[in-house]
């Protein structure tokens, strides 16, 4: 650091750091190349272009036990462009929107080039399909990539839609980002008793295993699933060929305290009388858990133990021809770490984000595909084994047995159900995918940046849930759900990028060239020399380095110069005396401006060139003006937030502080003035706000879609709003708000709305629902039919239920549907099975049964459009889009952008509304009690800035940690003759006299939330009952009763209202007349006791049906409940 400044003159040193104006402009440039969902797309692209070829390479050859000459070898594998099979072997490119509408899967064929033998011939076949791969939208193989907005609209696609999801069976599915502890890293931890241990989760393509190092009574043991007992570490060392105790100690460390800490472990070895490798292997071989053997030559216990040590324990450390050197050293380092951590409490932090990796769609899919591909190959092998021995006329041709459906269905089912179960890795995860929420544009975007943690939701722990300092800038500090998933579900910040796997060969080469001494060439003692640092690459020990400063600096220089990938990170850990180089996938990183000699590398001229379009973000990277840092490397740097904070030690400069927030929190104006939970609430609520979904919203036929009739851009916007195009797809309206008490119908956050505003279209929304039906063909040559409307005999006009049907039996667009009217008059054949052989085939015309699709809803709807098409199974598909227009009513939910939600409590005519001097009436009156306890100062400022913006005819910014200043905004208000505090003199509309207080008055952006009374209101007098218990059904959707629960019951008991209790719990619920025999106490039937065979003691009484059911169920399990009857007056 010092020498960097030595060549600068005093003046240069004293010169102020120039502020780079508008460096935020780097952000749109960044988003242009990276995009908001680029991590998904990058990872998927990597999978279908690179990873899939690696998987094929790893499983390239199939041989058969039956014929040593027979083989099948994959030469290449490709994923094509999405298409749809029109008829046999005729395909046509398909657009995503067509898949959505026709309930199909947007997928492309996976084709392979193979070489195989048929008889004695060697045959090469190219482009053989083996299955279909669902294609991520906007990935390299999607039809949408590289299209202009005009072409997007031709494909019925929204150019602002981020992509990054799949369309499976017509549903949009997102594979959520999964957070995991990073693989192949040593983590030193304290268990609950305070004992220190180390653990490594190793993972390679073949195997996944977890190795633990524990300390028991001062001795070190290795704990592993495959070992039935913890193995002493000394024995493991010996089994791996390090027989001399001295060598072991040298590797671990020769410091006094280290040696004394390890001594008991050596003693134990001695006690067990194990001195040689053979003895040690025998010892371990006896402890190996028996595994199911699947064929293969029988191995001895020793061989088994050696195999285990080589391949299963610490899988990721490569062992070639049983050369255990690297593994021994790795183990020694683990022991050393534990020894050093003992007492000093220098344990690793599990929640530290440098220790986390994010798994993306590509990685998950590659796991799945590898599994399916292996299954596919083993199936082929099985078929070959079966068929080759049999002599056939035609020679065995494996191509005829390659079936596509296994891989196709495997992929489709996994994505559509979200169940990822891979036996190979003992992986069984549920809920990996979710349906993309299209409630609003923001909810869809928010879903694409969501990260779900593997941690159990039910556990009540604070560690993994709390905000980690290392999440700074990578994950949004505000956007997390409340309740059980709080802190476990997170969201990416605006500039976060997630790395993909990289080739490590060149990095190893470079490291060795930079002076790293290969670990395999060392005797072992060098590892613990105080003068050297260990060098790790992706968790494996590469070697040692004397001058780690030089290594790190040169490495970074090389990276900035573009000789190695920009996402490779290098960082020193001074406590562990290590240099970590990472090139693995799933690391979080974000770009920073490089600072050299106390001056940011990015200058105004660069930004100007960027604005003029001479430069793009990539250029900034290539010219080493900007670089990516991951969490670990961030810890190694000194990053200044603003230019004026740059000191001598500063290495990087933040591009823009507001990027530490995510997409959802970016919508909030002045979030830095709000109490933090309020921002979190808004993040949850922004996803429920209705507005616009995309430019193609009117072409979609979704199950549920909410749109706003007149959406508006917010008056107070943020940089984020501009970047994510929220302005173009807004969800809310600028309402003029008066903060005052009015009428008492505004307590508890209720809002008072102006009736005239509602008349003029404020908060008016459209609710779209769909009705669907398919017309199938059955196996017995019958098929579903749609019948025309049924005519009334007398009037010759359609009956009421069929009054909206067209002549073809499908409702016509524009019609108004009432409850229980028929939308599609479908009928189905009564017999759909093929008649069994032998029984007489049915004579004459098949019988049909009506199965109409009816409309259910308390309010009428209009038919927007009807679509008739066919789905993937070639049956007719009829989709009907239904529309409702709703105007706000009492009970509808609204919210501002500051976590301040409220329901409409009263709708007041305009003339009763207060008005200010210029004659303006508020749209919304909000109770001031909403402010003091919530401390949403941001909302107050939003109102001021909004008001000034309206007067000035421009939009103000409320960007986090910036935005228009209150002082400037107030000056604007004064200029237009308004009070500088935003408080206006207001006259009551009821009395006509002025109000005694000045009223805070101005526009605030309000969102209408999806919760509307119309969808919730419910009451029931009589109605359906459950079949089993004869009690009223539950829930609004089943027209259920309102439950009188335990607590209510307790109240009635306490009050002593026994008759009311009886009425509520029995008479109005499931009262039932039973005949009970007074003699035997059993239930009789119609006045007759079947047990006593008499009717003399039978009396009739009323009990709950559930009670009678209980008696009968008890009887069925041989418990006989008997009722004792007596007269109440005796």
């Amino acid at each position, binding site marked *: 650091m010092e020498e960097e400044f030595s060549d600068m003159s005093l003046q240069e040193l004293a010169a102020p750091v120039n502020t780079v104006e508008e460096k935020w402009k780097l952000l749109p440039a960044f988003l242009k190349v990276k995009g908001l969902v680029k991590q998904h797309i990058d990872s998927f692209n990597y999978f279908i272009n690179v990873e899939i070829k690696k998987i094929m390479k790893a499983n390239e050859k199939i041989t058969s036990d039956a014929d040593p000459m027979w083989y099948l070898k994959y030469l290449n594998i490709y994923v094509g462009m999405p298409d749809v099979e029109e008829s046999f072997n005729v395909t046509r490119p398909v657009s995503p929107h067509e898949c959505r509408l026709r309930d199909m899967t947007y997928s492309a064929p996976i084709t392979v080039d193979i070489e195989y033998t048929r008889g004695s011939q060697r045959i090469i076949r190219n482009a053989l399909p083996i299955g279909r791969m669902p294609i991520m939208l906007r990935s390299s193989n999607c039809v949408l990539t590289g299209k202009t907005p005009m072409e997007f609209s031709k494909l019925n696609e929204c150019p602002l839609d981020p992509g990054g999801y799949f369309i499976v069976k017509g549903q949009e599915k997102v594979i959520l980002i999964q957070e995991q502890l990073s693989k192949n890293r040593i983590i030193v931890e304290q268990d609950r008793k305070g004992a220190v241990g180390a653990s490594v989760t190793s993972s390679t393509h073949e195997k996944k295993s977890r190795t633990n190092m524990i300390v028991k009574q001062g001795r070190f043991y290795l704990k592993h699933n495959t070992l039935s007992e913890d193995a002493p570490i000394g024995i493991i060392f010996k089994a791996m060929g390090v027989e001399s105790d001295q060598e072991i100690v040298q590797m671990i460390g020769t410091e006094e305290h280290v040696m004394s800490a390890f001594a008991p472990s050596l003693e134990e070895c001695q006690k067990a009388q194990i001195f040689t490798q053979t003895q040690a292997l025998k010892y371990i071989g006896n402890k190996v858990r028996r595994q199911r053997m699947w064929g293969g030559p029988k191995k001895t216990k020793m061989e088994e133990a050696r195999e285990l040590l080589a391949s299963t324990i610490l899988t990721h450390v490569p062992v070639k021809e049983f050369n255990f050197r690297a593994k021994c050293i790795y183990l020694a380092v683990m022991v050393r770490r534990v020894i050093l951590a003992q007492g000093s409490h220098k344990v690793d932090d599990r929640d530290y984000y440098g220790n986390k990796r994010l798994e993306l769609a590509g990685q998950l899919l590659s796991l799945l595909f590898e599994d399916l591909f292996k299954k596919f190959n083993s199936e082929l092998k099985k078929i070959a084994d079966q068929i080759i021995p049999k002599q056939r006329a035609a020679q065995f041709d494996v191509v005829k047995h390659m079936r596509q459906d296994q891989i196709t269905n495997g992929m489709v089912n996994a994505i559509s159900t979200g169940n990822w179960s891979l036996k190979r890795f003992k992986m069984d995860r549920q809920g990996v995918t979710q349906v993309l929420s299209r409630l609003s544009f923001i909810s869809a975007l928010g879903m694409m940046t969501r990260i779900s943690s593997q941690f159990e939701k039910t556990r009540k722990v604070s560690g993994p849930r709390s905000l980690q300092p290392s999440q700074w800038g990578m994950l949004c500090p505000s956007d997390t759900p409340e309740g059980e998933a709080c802190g476990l579900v997170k969201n990416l910040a605006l500039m976060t990028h997630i790395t993909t796997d990289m080739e490590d060969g060149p990095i190893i080469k470079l490291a060795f060239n930079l002076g790293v001494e290969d670990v395999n060439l060392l005797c072992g003692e060098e590892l613990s020399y105080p003068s050297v640092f260990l060098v790790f690459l992706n968790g494996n020990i590469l070697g040692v380095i004397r001058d780690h400063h030089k290594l790190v600096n040169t490495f970074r220089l090389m990276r900035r110069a573009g000789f190695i990938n920009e996402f490779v990170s290098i960082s020193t850990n001074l406590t562990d005396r290590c240099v970590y180089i990472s090139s693995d996938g799933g690391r979080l990183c974000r770009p920073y401006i490089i600072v050299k000699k106390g001056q940011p590398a990015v200058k105004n001229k660069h930004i100007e060139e960027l604005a003029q379009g001479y430069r793009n973000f990539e250029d900034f990277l290539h010219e080493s003006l900007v670089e990516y840092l991951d969490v670990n490397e961030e810890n190694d740097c000194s990053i200044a937030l603003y230019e004026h904070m740059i000191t001598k030690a500063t290495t990087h400069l933040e591009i823009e502080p507001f990027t530490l927030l995510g997409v959802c929190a970016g919508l909030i104006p002045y979030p830095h003035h709000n109490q933090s939970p309020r921002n979190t609430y808004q993040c949850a609520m922004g996803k429920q706000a209705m507005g616009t979904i995309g430019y193609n919203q009117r072409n979609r036929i979704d199950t549920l879609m909410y749109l706003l009739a007149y959406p508006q851009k917010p008056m107070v916007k943020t940089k984020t709003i501009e970047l994510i195009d929220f302005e173009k797809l807004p969800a809310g309206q600028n309402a003029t708000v008066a903060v005052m008490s009015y009428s008492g119908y505004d307590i508890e956050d209720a809002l008072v709305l102006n009736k005239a505003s509602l008349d003029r279209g404020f908060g008016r929304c*459209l609710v779209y629902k769909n009705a669907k039906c398919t017309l199938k063909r059955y196996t017995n040559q019958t098929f579903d039919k749609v019948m025309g409307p049924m005519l009334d005999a007398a009037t010759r006009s359609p009956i009421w239920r069929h009054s909206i049907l067209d002549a073809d039996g499908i409702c016509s667009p*524009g019609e108004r549907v009432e409850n229980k009217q028929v939308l599609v008059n479908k009928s189905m054949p009564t017999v759909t099975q093929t008649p069994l052989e032998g029984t007489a085939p049915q004579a004459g015309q098949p019988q049909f049964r009506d199965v109409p699709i009816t409309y259910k809803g308390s309010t009428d709807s*209009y038919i927007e459009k009807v679509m008739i098409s066919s789905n993937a199974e070639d049956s007719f598909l009829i989709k009907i889009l239904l529309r409702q227009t709703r105007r706000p009513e009492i009970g509808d939910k609204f919210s501002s952008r500051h976590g301040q939600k409220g329901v409409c409590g009263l709708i007041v005519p305009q003339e009763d509304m207060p008005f200010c001097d210029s*004659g303006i009436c508020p749209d919304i009156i909000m109770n001031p009690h909403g402010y003091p306890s919530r401390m949403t100062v941001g909302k107050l400022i939003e109102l001021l800035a909004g008001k000034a913006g309206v007067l000035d005819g421009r939009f103000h910014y409320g960007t986090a940690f910036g935005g228009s200043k209150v002082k400037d905004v107030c000056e604007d*208000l004064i200029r237009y003759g308004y009070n500088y505090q935003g408080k206006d003199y207001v006259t009551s509309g009821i*009395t*006509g006299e002025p109000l*005694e207080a*000045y009223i805070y008055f101005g526009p605030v952006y309000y969102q209408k939330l999806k919760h509307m009374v119309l969808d919730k209101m419910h009451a029931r007098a009589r109605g359906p009952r459950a079949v089993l218990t004869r009690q009223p059904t539950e829930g609004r959707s089943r027209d259920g009763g309102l439950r009188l629960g335990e607590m209510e019951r307790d109240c009635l008991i306490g009050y002593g209202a026994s008759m009311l209790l009886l009425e509520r719990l029995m008479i109005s619920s499931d009262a039932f007349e039973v005949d009970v025999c007074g003699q035997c106490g059993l239930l009789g039937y119609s006045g007759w006791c079947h047990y006593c065979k008499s009717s003399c003691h039978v009396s009739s009484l009323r009990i709950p049906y559930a009670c009678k059911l209980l008696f009968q169920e008890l009887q069925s399990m041989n418990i006989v409940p008997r009722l004792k009857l007596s007269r109440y007056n005796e």
Partner: protein
Amino acid sequence: MAAPMSNVDEIRKRVILSEFGVRNVHTTDYPGNYPGYDDAWSLQKFKKNFRIEVVHMDDTSMEFDMIGVDAALANAFRRILLAEVPTMAVEKVFVYNNTSIIQDEILAHRLGLIPIKADPRLFEYRNAGAEFRDEEGTEIDTIQLQLKVKCTRNPRATKESSDPRELYLNHMVYSKDMKWVPIGNQADVFADAQIGPVHDDILLAQLRPGQELDVVMHCVKGIGKDHAKFSPVATASYRLLPEITLLQTVEGEKAERLKRCFSPGVIELENRGGKQVAKVVNSRLDTCSREVLRHDDLKNLVKLGRVRDHFIFSVESTGILPPDVLVTEAISVLVAKCQKFLNELDSTEME
């Protein structure tokens, strides 16, 4: 206005704008409330005090002063203007064909909000209530309008053009496309009334080639209470006349600052003996932003007040009727209400 008022007079006649709130907001001059004042209402006194001065008037807006009435009465006029003066507006929309992007309900809503130029005084109210729902409108209560537009490609557009204005014909549907279809004798009666939308350039919908709108509208008479579309005004409101009193002579830099605290033209500087002295010129122009109260040294030098019985009314018509007619209509609505109330009183006395 320089003459100081007595305390009671001030409470009776002025609303005071102080730093943290408004004082004396309520009318207190009830008979007997103040000893020594005769507050009994008399027509003579009212006639003497009451004045209406029209300040400004054009086709759509008007500003007038109503002086010498109580807030309740002024407010009544305001409320009636907003909600009870009838106009004609589209109430029923018969959609024969709508293949455009805009939904039927939204189109109907938009059509409803368009001001229709037709003198509501010449029409009757339609019968309300469920039993009359299916009743056809007649010439005395309904105006029929038609909107029939079809968008086509412009055959004369240049090939490489991407501008919809050049590519398509009729792709913007404006309110001028709403055509009046007279019913019965309406053609004769309203021959020179030019019934139709007030404004020609309200965008109703956008179309693309092949899309079509075929809509018939029935306009009926209604009041703003029922729906804001019937309101004859864009807004009608009033404010009280501001009154600014300088309690001391303000001069020099302070005067300059004082001047800047008010709207332009409220305070002017006067050269009095070589010194710039502030003087209230026209307090009517002030917007009551209370900016002076922020200046600690100035806030005690002025008194901000408003004259309690001087209402500066502003009526902005939607263009259906001129604002002066609206005000007279409002007055006659109030008169009719009073008359009705009197009749009710009489009839109860009869029983």
